[in-house]
């Protein structure tokens, strides 16, 4: 029986050949960063790190949407959940991320109406079903999720679902890469660029960062063969000293991405600055509701009285996201910070680097 299409991307003999090629061709010591949290988890789940030669170090970048959500935004989600007659809707990952005081899961346990949804459209449905309540969606995520959130806002506007709003903390990938490359101490020899995000952005979105910094970059998918293939391409680019921006995921990613999705995204949102957990403010890396859609802004709808609270002392999530430290080098790792008692989001999110190190060793 032949392999199905997807099984080919897990074929052990193909993997073996790729690993052998990487071992044979890799001479330079390389620090490669997977930008996406799903890549991080795939690398750990398939045990990819320990079959690569010692010359290659894989680092986890700022690509886990939960990990990069600023503590102040988590505090805002929690503050919204404390408002009377409010239903907070969120993706599962966000439930256990600690703010400065508590988590959404903690709020749920204390009696707040916090509901896990699988799509932002579920939140609109909940709003329709509960006209006497305010339904707020915690909008986190990158280019992969922003178009859907935009579409939900458009739907709510069209159907006059006035009790629905979003608290926006969405982020864009390319500005983060640019910020990373200008941060002192950051040294990266290659980017494994995110597959899902690139489906929307296309290859073009990375061109400016690439032209400026000339760091070898390969867009790839999430199967082990995809990732090993990308590693081999980055090894070859480095060994030949010819950096390039390559697309190793053509089965899903086009040069121009998905213009329709981007159109919907830009119909509702405009680019603004955003605070990244552990990294700080990155110019033009966030998304804000356009004036026409301000009625859907939960931040404006509720008086939240948020105060700035310092991020937990000793938490190295920021340095880990920038490839400056590995989780094991964090003073809190496995001591104070565990999946049961996470201090930083990198430990709580299923896509976080610390959680991956902790769970998969």
């Amino acid at each position: 029986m032949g392999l199905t299409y997807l099984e080919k991307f897990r074929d052990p003999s193909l993997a073996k050949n790729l690993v052998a090629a990487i071992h044979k061709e890799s001479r330079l010591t390389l620090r490669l960063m997977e930008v996406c949290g799903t890549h991080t988890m795939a690398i750990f789940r398939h045990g990819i790190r320990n079959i690569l030669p010692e010359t290659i170090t894989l680092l986890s970048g700022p690509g886990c949407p939960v990990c990069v959500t600023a503590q102040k935004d988590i505090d805002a989600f929690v503050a919204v959940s404390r408002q009377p007659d409010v239903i907070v809707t969120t993706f599962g990952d966000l439930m256990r991320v600690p703010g400065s005081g508590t988590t959404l899961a903690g709020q749920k346990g204390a009696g707040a109406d916090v509901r896990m949804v699988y799509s932002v459209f579920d939140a609109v449905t909940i709003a329709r079903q509960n006209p006497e309540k305010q339904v707020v969606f915690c909008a986190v995520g990158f280019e992969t999720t922003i178009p859907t959130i935009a579409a939900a806002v458009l739907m709510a506007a069209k159907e006059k679902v006035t009790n629905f709003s979003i608290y926006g903390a969405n982020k864009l990938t390319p500005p983060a890469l640019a910020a990373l490359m200008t941060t002192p101490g950051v040294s990266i020899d290659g980017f494994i660029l995110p597959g899902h995000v690139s489906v929307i952005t296309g290859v073009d979105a990375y061109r400016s960062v690439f032209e400026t910094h000339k760091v070898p970059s390969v867009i790839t998918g999430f199967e082990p063969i995809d990732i090993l293939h990308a590693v081999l391409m980055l090894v070859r680019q480095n060994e030949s000293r010819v950096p390039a921006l390559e697309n190793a995921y053509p089965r899903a990613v086009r040069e121009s991405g998905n213009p329709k999705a981007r159109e919907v995204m830009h119909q509702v949102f405009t680019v603004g600055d955003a605070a990244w957990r552990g990294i700080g403010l990155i110019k033009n890396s966030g998304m804000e509701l356009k004036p026409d859609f301000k009625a859907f802004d939960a931040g404006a709808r509720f008086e939240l009285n948020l105060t700035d609270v310092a991020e937990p002392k000793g938490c190295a999530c920021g340095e880990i996201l920038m490839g400056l430290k590995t989780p094991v080098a964090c003073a809190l790792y496995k001591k104070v910070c565990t999946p049961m008692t996470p201090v930083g989001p990198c430990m709580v999110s299923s896509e976080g680097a610390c959680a991956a190190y902790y769970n998969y060793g």
Partner: protein
Amino acid sequence: MNAEKNNTILLDHGAGGKASHALFSEMILPLFSNEYLAMGDDGAVYSVPAGKMAFSTDSYVVDPIFFNGGNIGDLAVNGTVNDIAMCGAIPLYISVGLIIEEGLPINDFQEIITSMATAADRAGVKIVTGDTKVVPRGKADKIFINTSGVGMIPEGVNVSGSRALPGDKIILSGTMADHGIAILTAREGLTFDGDLKTDSAPLNHMVKTMLSSGCEVHVLRDPTRGGVGTTLNEIASQSGVGMTLFEKDLPIKKPVNGVCELLGFDPLYIANEGKLLAIVPEKQASKVLDLIKADTFGKNAAIIGEVTDQRPGKVFLETAIGGQRLVDMLTGEQLPRIC
């Protein structure tokens, strides 16, 4: 009986008066009927054989109460039957405690207790004592069920989690994660193609066949909440041994695997309700595997790994592409990923 007239459970049904009596004598007793329950005493009185007994209890608060392939009723019976069977015992008698929320449709109640009766018959156990309480609307979620059970352990049987030895083989009696994914998709109203059905089933007959075959079985355990990964960690820790699993040998249905991949779940940590892990000496592994495969609920059984003397207390997985990773105990509940 006014339950039927109103079509829902009322607080009266738990008040101990005529309505309670009618609920028990007209609905419950005919289904659970046996000579011990029919005595109508405060508890069951029965003879016990000489030797060792196993005793176990569990409470079922599953949401939703009906799901593809079963409901809270047969789950509650199978769960306790399996807990007793995993002690190496032959389950004999079980008790049933029902906590019902006012307003539960009588038809739903009827379906649940009918499933319990069918499950008890299939497992060959008798429901010999029980209790029914009705609580005001909002004080419980439709129905909660507690089941406790006792069983007899045959002479010479000891299948404690502390008995795994280096060199032993690890057998899983079928596909992983079926129950957890069936519940998740029913609870969240997620619709996927493919057969996403609970594996809830009694395993006592399978256990009896294994233990009476003369084969040596070191450990038996059912990987319920926490899944195969957590259960094997518990055994590795109890026995002070290491374990290596082989990803290529892990049985999982394609649709179940698809849902796990989509939501970012690791099937090794998803609950099962009709599967067991048997740790057996290498020389008997293929015979035990054949016995399990011959059982109705063991057709997809496989040897999934081996016990080692390396890294005591740790479970490692050799991935299909030749890598290796730690399989730690599950922390908290798995949450679906964002992208």
